[in-house]
């Protein structure tokens, strides 16, 4: 109590004692509870260790990554872990204890091991999956029937995310001309509000679940690769309980988050989700076309079969018809015989009928007969008259022919004073054919004369 120290002197003693007691670098596990980068590029963190309840804090210290380190550490970590350094993340880092007489105790971090964080995240993911499995809900969304036509789509995304507009554009501009209806439920897609936001949106969609065929959860890729927001029990549980199939496209190339794993189908990007939906529509339309073709083909087959049936029936029908006609004919002759017999019977009966009736019948018959006779006579007369005219006409015609033949007959020609001259049996038609002393024959109607040309 004798020596009095200035505050600075005390702080320096503390600092030197700390440096002497803890001279090394230490690998430390802690969770980032706050992180910010100031204007000169230095990164300030608050590091904590939580009690097993994950709420109360059992240890806390400030940390700093100087700008010359942070420039390299940040991209290295993000590339390896696929996560940005952010609050809530558990990290394994190497640090030196630093004590400043103004700012007090802090850890200067000069290395971070991304493998630890990856392991931590995988572990956390495994724990969530195991819990969901234990509760028997892990595959409940996958077990839903996927709709034939996923046309009415509830979109959980951020309205200003590039992935969202890619998705909408891709759906709208599908080359098949399919129509999609989308309703956006605007939701933060990263940061500590992600879980609450997604759960709230799912709740709102669930109120109108019958309006939707499918729910899609999408966000753009790019530098936003923080998948661990989707390694979340609450989000996953809500999806498993959701009555409508959920598709995800939260843009991670390497790993699947818990959200992806419980979803009906996980796709890598929002565009891939749009392609998947379009593909479903194509399948639906193909199925429709197949059935349509099937119905047409089968119907034609049935019609053809029936036509053949009718044709073969017709072929069988013709001989059948002939048969039945001949049957009918013999039946008919039976009927005629019956009729004749009945007629005879009738006449016999008629004979027994009263006299006047009989005489009426007789006189009726007589008058009918005389009328018939007259008609026959008339017909005969006109027939014979016609025949006579016809015959006389033919007679004249024939007489004409006979006359003509008579005129042309050579005998008749000779009789009219003409002669026929011939030499050696050949008929001479011109005087120039003859010369002096030729012997010629002249034929008269009553005989030939031989003479000599002088």
């Amino acid at each position, binding site marked *: 109590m004798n020596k009095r120290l200035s505050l600075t002197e005390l702080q320096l003693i503390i600092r030197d004692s700390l440096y002497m007691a803890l001279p090394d670098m230490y690998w430390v596990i802690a969770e980032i509870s706050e992180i910010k980068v100031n204007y000169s590029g230095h990164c300030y963190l608050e590091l904590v260790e939580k009690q097993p309840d994950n709420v109360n804090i059992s240890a806390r210290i400030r940390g700093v990554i100087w700008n010359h380190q942070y420039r390299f550490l940040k991209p290295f970590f993000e590339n390896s872990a696929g996560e940005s350094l952010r609050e809530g993340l558990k990290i394994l880092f190497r640090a030196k204890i630093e004590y400043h007489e103004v700012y007090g105790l802090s850890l200067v971090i000069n290395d971070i091991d991304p493998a630890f964080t990856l392991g931590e995240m995988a572990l956390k993911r495994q724990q969530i999956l195991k819990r969901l499995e234990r509760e028997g809900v892990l595959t409940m969304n996958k077990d839903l029937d996927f709709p034939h036509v996923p046309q009415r789509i509830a979109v959980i995304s951020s309205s200003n995310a590039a992935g969202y507009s890619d998705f909408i554009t891709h759906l709208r501009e599908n080359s098949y001309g399919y*129509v999609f209806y989308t309703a956006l439920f605007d939701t933060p897609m990263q940061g500590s509000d992600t879980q609450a936001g997604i759960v709230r949106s799912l709740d709102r969609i669930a109120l*109108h679940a019958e309006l939707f065929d499918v729910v899609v959860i999408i966000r753009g890729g790019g530098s936003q690769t923080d998948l661990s927001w989707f390694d979340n029990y609450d989000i996953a549980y809500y999806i498993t309980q959701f009555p409508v199939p959920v598709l995800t496209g939260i843009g991670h190339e390497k790993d699947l988050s818990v959200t992806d794993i419980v979803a009906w189908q996980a796709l890598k990007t929002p565009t891939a989700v749009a392609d998947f939906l379009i593909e479903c529509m194509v399948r639906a339309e193909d199925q429709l076309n197949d*059935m349509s073709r099937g119905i047409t083909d089968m119907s034609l087959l049935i019609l053809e079969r029936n036509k053949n049936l009718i044709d073969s029936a017709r072929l069988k029908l013709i001989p059948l018809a002939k048969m039945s006609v001949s049957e009918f004919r013999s039946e008919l002759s039976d009927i005629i015989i019956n009729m004749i017999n009945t007629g005879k019977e009738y006449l016999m009966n008629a004979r027994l009928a009263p006299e006047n009736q009989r005489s009426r019948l007789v006189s009726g018959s007589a008058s009918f007969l005389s009328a018939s006779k007259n008609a026959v006579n008339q017909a005969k007369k006109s027939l014979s008259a016609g025949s006579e005219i016809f015959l006389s006409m033919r007679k004249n015609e024939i007489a004409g022919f006979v006359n003509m033949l008579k005129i042309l007959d050579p005998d008749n020609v000779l009789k009219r004073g003409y002669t026929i001259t011939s030499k050696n049996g050949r008929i001479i038609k011109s005087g120039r054919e003859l010369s002096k002393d030729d012997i010629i024959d002249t034929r008269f109607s009553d005989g030939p004369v031989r003479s000599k040309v002088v």
Partner: protein
Amino acid sequence: MAKKEFSFNQAVNEIGKILREIESGEMDVDRLSSEVKRASELIRQCQKKLKTTEEEINAIFRDLT
């Protein structure tokens, strides 16, 4: 929604049923024409659903969000 919706799934199921019945050969010609007519009407409606916008649904979706 009070309006009875056209269900693609139900329509496809019905078309499939008609197709199977025709394929089984149990369909007589008298019924064939009416069933084919029914199926082609359902197919037409399904095609329409895939490619024609229903303003009604758009309006409901706008109200929701």
